[in-house]
């Protein structure tokens, strides 16, 4: 990766992040009613409002306010929840591990299932097996995550009672060590599966098309001419290179994954950021909602950046004009 690329790609992040903060600022100021209500809540008295107006610079002219707002967000000050009176960061921070666990588990499930299926489909394109895998992938891609989550509860949990359907660990239990891990894993299984479905579908299709593209290339013909077995051609020569587009898209789908996590968390009562979103929404807790919006947006930007840099590191052809 050239230094020029690295610098230019890093610089591109700045206008995007500025734009995200600007969108949040514009929304708060375009909303009906006094913006002080949006930062200080609706239950303060005049003195408190005056204090907040001054503290958040709302008594300043608009451009000045924008600068203040940018400065605050840039320094990581996301304000305080109206409802809980705690810092937005702390509130969101304590929910992140649960969402991270759910997201990571479902990505691992998706990869573990999708890569072999993608290889199996690409081995004989347009065969019955390929068509079946393709059809199942498209079906999973089309089904909403919250519905799959409910179907899993209906089909697996209500029927067999094997998996718990609410929360992250057994309520009232006082487990630690290995039993605790197993308990969490049992709670995690169905939500992770529901959230994995759509990513799995995307990954199957990408692996398949990436492999088929790769198998048409010259270096594959060379490998075959040298007498490599079909298995070695597929797995050793084609597969690693076909993974590149898979990883690229994986990075770009982080936003979808987080949106999916929200609805899955709601169905399963999983104590992550998605549940926090819903509670904050019910109480119109604007600072928390804005905080979630900023954090998720910046995560998406970061994931895109990481993907692009990783891509450029392994593929020297990648460059910006």
């Amino acid at each position, binding site marked *: 990766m050239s230094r020029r690329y690295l610098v230019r*790609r890093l610089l*591109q992040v700045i*206008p*995007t992040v500025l*734009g*995200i903060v600007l*969108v949040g600022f514009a*929304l*708060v100021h375009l*909303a*009906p009613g006094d913006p002080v209500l*949006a930062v200080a809540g609706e239950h303060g008295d005049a003195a408190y409002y005056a204090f907040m107006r001054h503290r958040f610079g709302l008594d300043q002219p608009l451009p000045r306010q924008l600068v203040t707002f940018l400065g605050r967000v840039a320094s990581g000050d996301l304000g305080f929840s109206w409802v809980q009176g705690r810092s937005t960061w702390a509130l969101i921070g304590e929910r992140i591990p649960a969402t991270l666990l759910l997201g990571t588990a479902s990505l691992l499930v998706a990869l573990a299932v999708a890569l072999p299926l993608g290889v199996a489909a690409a081995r004989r394109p347009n065969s019955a097996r390929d*068509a079946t895998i393709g059809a199942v992938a*498209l*079906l999973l891609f*089309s*089904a*909403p995550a*919250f*519905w799959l989550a*409910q*179907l899993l*509860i*209906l089909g697996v949990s*209500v029927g067999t009672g094997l998996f718990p359907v609410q929360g992250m660990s057994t309520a009232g239990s006082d487990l630690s060590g290995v039993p605790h891990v197993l308990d969490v894993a049992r709670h995690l299984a169905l939500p992770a599966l529901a959230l994995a479905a759509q990513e799995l579908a*995307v990954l199957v*299709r990408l692996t398949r*098309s990436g492999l*088929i593209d790769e198998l048409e290339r010259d270096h594959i013909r060379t490998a075959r001419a040298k007498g490599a077995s079909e298995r070695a051609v597929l797995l050793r020569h084609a597969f690693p290179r076909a993974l590149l587009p898979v990883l*690229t*898209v994986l990075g*770009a*789908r982080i936003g*979808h994954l*987080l*949106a999916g996590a*929200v*609805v899955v968390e*709601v*169905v399963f009562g999983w104590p992550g950021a998605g549940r926090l*979103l*819903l509670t*904050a*929404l019910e109480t*119109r*807790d*604007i600072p928390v*909602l804005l905080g979630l*919006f900023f954090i*998720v*947006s910046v995560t*998406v*930007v970061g994931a*895109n*950046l990481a993907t*692009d840099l990783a*891509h450029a590191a392994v593929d020297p052809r*990648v460059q*910006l*004009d």
Partner: protein
Amino acid sequence: MPPSIPASSSTELAPAHAVPALVIRRRGTVRAVLARPSGRAGAALLVVTLALALVAPLVVSGDPFALSGTPLEAPSRGHPMGTDALGRDLLAGVVHGGRASLLIATAVMLVAVGCGGAIGLFAGIRGGMADDVLGRGIELFQVLPRLFLVAVVVALFGPGVDRLVLTLGLTSWPAIARVVRGEVIATRGLDFVLASRALGASRTHVATRVLLPAVMPSLLVMVGLLFGQVLLTEASLGFLGLGDPTILSWGVLVGASQGFLRTAWWLTVFPGLAITVAILAFNLLADALSSVLGGR
């Protein structure tokens, strides 16, 4: 991959950018799409969906909010999809909810295709600075997480179908703009475009009569995919209670079933199935069209 847009913003499902900028006769394309199993299945499901959402409200009598039976009645001849916790007919709900979901998604698509098409064409034709600036704009609106943005909008402005359509539309156009821009860049130097320029065609003529038709096939693939995505997002928002509270949509129905999973399976199964069938229809058609055009 067109320059100045990073690789991470590449397409998420079908590699629409692999579609060659061919101008294919329209009737031939439709026939070729329908010749594929996925195209036929997609068309059939789309017909079912449209029949359910557009025709059936005229047939299935009355108001989806009206009480018409005992609460939580299992599917029967009188109520083919059963009744909900208040004794409302679920079939009426699914049929009317479908109309709402499809209308909202269509409105979103109009905003997205209008903005995305215009911006993509402009960026692709002008190139240079304009393209750079618009490229940043495309990236910005693409990273905005829809669900979280809608949550902020709903909390600040209150729920409503107008802001729902605007927010979804304004976060959906980048996908369209990217495809159009990429195709325009791939096409603008080709002989038939140069010929029309040389013949003295105006800029508007070249943009709308020469480039736009050439872009159309890839655009349609993207529109199909995006329609499915928008339906999915709209359903998620309805499920979370972020939609318009006065409108019954598929997502709202599934959301309402959450408390009755153990007692009334039909409340989740039928509306969820309707959403899936509708989304599947668009994905299948987009798939078939994309493979007709040479993608994979």
